[in-house]
């Protein structure tokens, strides 16, 4: 029953080019996976690098002090940038800032509590933009009154806190005021209160003088640079991957390796009466126009013709007389190569010649000349194509898997 079924229950045959389509899909998918992997890695790298930037910016300034004699921008704490106006002074350790004089604009990235202690109150935020201005003439309050207590010195000041983004909590002893964007508060001897009488001072100028380039700006910039880098690396990897070298496209180094192994490889344009003519589908796969088929067909025809002439010349010298059958005489020469039992010396000699390690002997045997002819068959074909397509394109066409070639590895 099985044989009957096998005969009559005919299976569907794969269509032409199925393997190529599958391989192309697999390679595309692999690149896609790698793209996603790179993208994830890029983002991770960018985040890590951004964190690194913060550390870089913060490490020397994670604990420090700045007294501004002009407008100064300083990265402070773990995630803040402060713009100090002339006369301002701040000292900080991590996310805890002591501002004892002057006017300072802060931009704080969201995170855990960021605290600014002033002579007249404590400001705590989670992430926002605000300004603290201290006027020493207006207050005679004791620092310990505000619960900061570390300095314990008598400090006179009125503190104005203005908020530009987010929320800010200002504490003065037991008094606590929460400010929204656009609001400001005053902290002085009378406590802390919202000040709606005076308009909020404007924020420092934008980057025309560079002072408001914040950590977020830098992080964004670094992130985009890292992602760009990842994309470029991906392009590079894809470009390298995309060029899958034909195993018969041999460099002198490749020949050197073959010489060590005593192997011989060749590829040559296939033989067809009148020369092989690529189909429209084959041309499409190569990205060529149907009209390009003529030039390729001509190259095949000439290659076949020249090779027949050359091999017959060698055979005539080897065996004497006219050698009408090129294939037959080539087989005789190959038989001679194997006649000594071990063809490796002949293959090694040929590979070393191709590797540039030795010259073609003047008295080269017909067998060696045949091997030279075989291993050099692609060059004239490629040169022929180059007249129409240019060298680079000719090489691509000559070593594509979509056309008709005879290739072999012998050892």
């Amino acid at each position, binding site marked *: *029953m099985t044989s009957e079924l096998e005969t009559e229950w005919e*299976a569907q045959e794969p269509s032409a080019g199925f*393997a190529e389509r*599958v391989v192309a*899909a*697999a*390679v595309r998918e692999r690149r896609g996976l790698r793209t996603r992997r790179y993208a994830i890695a890029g983002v991770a790298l960018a985040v890590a690098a951004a964190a690194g930037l913060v550390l870089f910016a913060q490490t020397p300034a994670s604990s420090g002090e700045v007294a501004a004699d002009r407008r100064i921008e300083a990265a402070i704490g773990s995630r803040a940038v402060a713009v100090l106006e002339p006369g301002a002074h701040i000292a900080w350790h991590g996310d805890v800032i002591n501002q004892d004089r002057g006017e300072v604009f802060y931009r704080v990235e969201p995170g855990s509590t960021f605290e600014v202690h002033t002579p007249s109150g404590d400001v705590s935020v989670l992430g926002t933009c605000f300004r603290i201005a201290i006027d020493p003439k207006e207050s005679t309050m004791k620092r310990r009154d505000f619960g900061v207590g570390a300095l314990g010195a008598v400090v006179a000041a009125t503190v104005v806190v203005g908020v530009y983004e987010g929320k800010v909590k200002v504490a003065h002893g037991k008094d606590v005021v929460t400010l929204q964007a656009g609001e400001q508060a005053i902290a002085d001897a009378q406590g802390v209160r919202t000040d709606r009488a005076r308009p909020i001072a404007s924020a420092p100028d934008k980057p025309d003088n560079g002072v408001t380039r914040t950590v977020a700006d830098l992080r964004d910039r670094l992130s985009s640079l890292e992602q760009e880098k990842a994309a470029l690396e991906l392009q590079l990897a894809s470009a390298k991957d995309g060029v899958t070298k034909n195993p018969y496209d041999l460099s002198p180094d490749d020949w050197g390796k073959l010489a060590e192994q005593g192997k011989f490889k060749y590829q040559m344009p296939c033989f067809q009466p009148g020369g092989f003519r690529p189909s429209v589908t084959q041309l499409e796969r190569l990205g060529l126009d149907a009209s390009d088929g003529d030039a390729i067909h001509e190259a095949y025809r000439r290659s076949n013709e020249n090779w027949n002439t050359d091999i017959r010349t060698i055979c005539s010298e080897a065996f004497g007389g006219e050698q009408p059958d090129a294939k037959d005489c080539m087989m005789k020469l190959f038989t001679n190569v194997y006649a000594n039992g071990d063809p490796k010396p002949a293959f090694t000699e040929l590979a070393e010649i191709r590797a540039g390690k030795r010259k073609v002997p003047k008295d080269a045997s017909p067998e060696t000349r045949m091997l030279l002819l075989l291993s050099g068959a692609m060059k004239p074909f490629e040169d022929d194509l180059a007249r129409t397509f240019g060298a680079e394109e000719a090489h691509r066409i000559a070593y594509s898997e979509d056309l008709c070639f005879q290739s072999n590895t012998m050892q």
Partner: protein
Amino acid sequence: MVDASAPARSSGPPELARDVLIRCKALDPIAFRAFVVRYQRPVFAVLSRMLGRGPHVEDLAQEAFLRAFRAFPAFDVDAPAKPSTWILTIATRLALDSRKRRVLAILPIEAAETESSETTPHTEHARSELRTSIAHATAQLPDDQRAVFVLAEFHGLTMAEIAEALDVAEATVKTRLHRARTKLQQRLTAHREEP
């Protein structure tokens, strides 16, 4: 009675060389192409016999090979499982899944593209009828029996290999194969006896 435990081993071409499989594991596209070229015919055969001929066969064949490509890094070239069994397992499971998702029409078998020089209108008519009978007989097999039958009879998988491929007990495979053979024999015998 046919011995269900001894399916006919098909003597197909040899398995792909180990060094090529090792390159496939490294996702070398050239080696993978060799893998596709070597196993595309059995994969198409399993799928078309499971699901009937048509463009869906090529779609699923491509999916089977892509799954193999994705899984190649984990493929053990030194394991006793043959690559042919592995890819046929992937293809068979895909076919069964496809049948579960959507019942595909089991299409009639098309006439052979090339005719034998000995073919006469009479013999061709008889063959055409036989093909139709086979198509109908196999189309009536349940999916699980059809899968076992195809893998055993056409691809020479052992009972153990089929059991692993379909994730069922070996005894179940034997039962399904026996039932499939019996049903087909009955239907084809009936066909022969028709005037």
